């Protein structure tokens, strides 16, 4: 039976971090290590082989302070495939006095002796705040506009699998860069792996000094697409397309929607990606999204589970007493 790469005896040297709060702070070889680990799980998941229950007996709590369907599901499946007891905690923002509950929740989760906690929160930096208060590993499933590291890892892995390598690929990230944690984590991960990253957004949705993150900013989507190997479209929240940041969603579609016509500017074998959920007909047309030769959107979902399995496995190795990870 094929197994994911066996843990080397010097495991801690490959990944010396207790938590995964962001891509920031990870060395390129540490990112590659996680991708390699995830690669093994993809094969295993496809074969539907004898399950590997290495997290059996461990409790994984998914504490989601912000609504999510797919990320929560992905983490739940990842944990269950590894045999963990997965508990989902939905903390609707309306029902809580946010700050107080955040710290109290962290203390409560800790007292329940969770073995790994997955957190999504609407405020940047919130996951790190909780990570400081608990004894077990914490995985960031998205904090405000800050980071969404597993999304960036799954995107990098998808690119690597389809293109052979991330290094040297011209990647265009287009959409609401200002409010996007997906964009930030992807910028960090892809530049660390030596991709040539372009970001594209209207100036109202472009963060200040973004070029300081080693990317090239564009406001003209057609220019950004020139010669692109990968086109990553981001979802634009509807409330931002009603006059605050953008005049309307149809104007956004006209300037930044990814159509078949527009995609011709990219490399002939350019890969189309989207973290989901898509606004079909706004940032991406159905024809592009559903073109199996170009679109990696469903594959991203598959890689997502594998990446989360890898992260859950790696972060709990120390507690599980895996050799070389003590």
């Amino acid at each position, binding site marked *: 039976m094929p197994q994911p790469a066996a843990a080397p005896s010097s495991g801690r040297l490959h990944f010396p971090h207790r938590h995964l709060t962001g891509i920031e702070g990870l060395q390129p070889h540490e990112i590659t290590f996680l991708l390699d680990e995830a690669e093994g799980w993809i094969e295993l998941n496809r074969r539907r082989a004898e399950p590997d229950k290495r997290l059996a007996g461990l409790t994984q709590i998914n504490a989601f302070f912000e609504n999510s369907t797919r990320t929560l599901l992905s983490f739940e499946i990842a944990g269950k495939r590894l045999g963990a007891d997965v508990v989902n905690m939905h903390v609707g923002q309306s029902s809580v006095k946010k700050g107080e509950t955040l710290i109290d929740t962290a203390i409560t989760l800790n007292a329940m002796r969770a073995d790994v906690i997955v957190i999504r929160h609407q*405020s*940047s*930096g919130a996951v790190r*705040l909780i990570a400081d208060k608990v004894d077990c590993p914490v995985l960031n499933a998205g904090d405000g506009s800050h980071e969404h590291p597993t999304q960036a890892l799954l995107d990098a892995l998808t690119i690597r699998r389809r293109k052979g390598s991330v290094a040297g690929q011209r990647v265009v990230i287009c959409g609401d860069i200002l409010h996007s944690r997906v964009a930030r984590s992807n910028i960090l991960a892809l530049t660390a792996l030596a991709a040539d990253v372009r970001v594209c957004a209207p100036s109202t949705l472009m963060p*200040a000094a973004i070029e300081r993150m080693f990317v090239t900013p564009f406001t003209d989507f057609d220019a950004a697409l020139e010669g692109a190997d990968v086109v990553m479209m981001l979802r634009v929240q509807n409330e931002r397309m009603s006059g605050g940041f953008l005049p309307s969603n149809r104007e956004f579609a006209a300037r930044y929607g990814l159509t078949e016509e527009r995609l011709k500017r990219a490399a002939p074998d350019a890969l189309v990606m989207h973290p989901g959920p898509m606004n079909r007909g706004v940032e991406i047309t159905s024809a592009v999204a559903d073109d199996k030769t170009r679109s990696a959107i469903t594959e991203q979902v598959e890689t997502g589970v594998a990446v989360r399995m890898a992260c859950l496995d790696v972060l709990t190795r120390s507690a599980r007493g895996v050799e070389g990870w003590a």
Partner: protein
Amino acid sequence: MRPLAFLNARLVCPAGGEREGALLVVDEAIAATGTIDIPSHAEVIDCNGAHLAPAIVDLGVRAIDLPAFHAGGIVRVGLMPDQSPVLDEPGAVQRAALIGRPDLWIHPIAAATRALAGVELGEMALTHAAGARAVGTGARWIADSGVMRRVLAYAADLGLPVIAHAEDGGLTGNAVATAGETATRMGLPSAPSLAEPLAIARDLLLAEETGARLHLREVTTAAGFKLVRAAKRRGVAVTCGITPAHLLLSDIAMSDFRTFLRLSPPLRDESDRQAALAALADGTIDVLCSGHDPRGPEEKRLPFADATPGMAGAETLLALSLGLVRDERLSLDRLFALLAANPARLLGVETGTLEVGRPADLLVFDRDAPWQIDGDRFRARAGNTPFDGLPVQGKVVQLFKGGRALA
């Protein structure tokens, strides 16, 4: 009360410079300095070469926190109007003005507009009669330029300075950081630093036109200092202040999401900090204040953007300021102009120098005594200092209000 003679002191006076000497206090006021005749029944304090300066007048504190002020060498404060209730009516002002006496003299800054809402004029004459020494916009900006113009014009009639918060609220919105690399990397809501000069430019033009005295509580940007510098040159009655945080820290310090670094105005980038140091050196900055705003864990142990802005600054103001002197950013006597004489003049109180006749509000300090800033050991109501762990030099040895030693 017996006369009090300070001997072997290093006198630091914003009006008279720095010199060795003695100081005599009679009837709660400074009676002589330099070489003095010691009355036979006088109480004698040997300063052993320590510095003797006017006690600090801290303009624009957010909370009444007596132990922290005394630990910091502060005997008078200008209290911000954003209290609960807001200092917008004579009763609240009078109560605030008297609550600290005799150990702490609180000079309330009355709300320039009712409830600080920026719509209707506050009762400036009545609150002034109740003890207010200035009117202010609090931690907020008056968006309506018509209202701001009337505030300045009306305050000018009464001879009251207007203390303004200079940040264009339309630009700042819900921002908690200055737009730039740090805020972008952290994914925090941010506003361009332009929000400050934009607000300053308007207020300066209005002050110039109405003839009002305008004090910008905190100026923190290169463009802001440029505007203030030019206005002063034109003869506009404008002054401005800053806290040590904006002189010593730039926004990169927020990188670990530590909410003690969440300030209003937010920390700026390094070029603005350098501009602030230059403005300190060339005299553009008139007032150095603590911005004292103790906030406990329930307001600070939160995600960065959800935390309340503010720092407990009273106990670190002196040591951090002395660091600026040690770095040769300014002289010791000018430091005390910024800490005492200028804020006193702004509030119209006769203190802040060692001139004969002034109230004996005195601070004896050891300029070099080393210590390490530790928020947990603050006497303040909360230890939210952005300087936690920083080694500093300079300690309060003794503090006097009207010639009376404070514990």
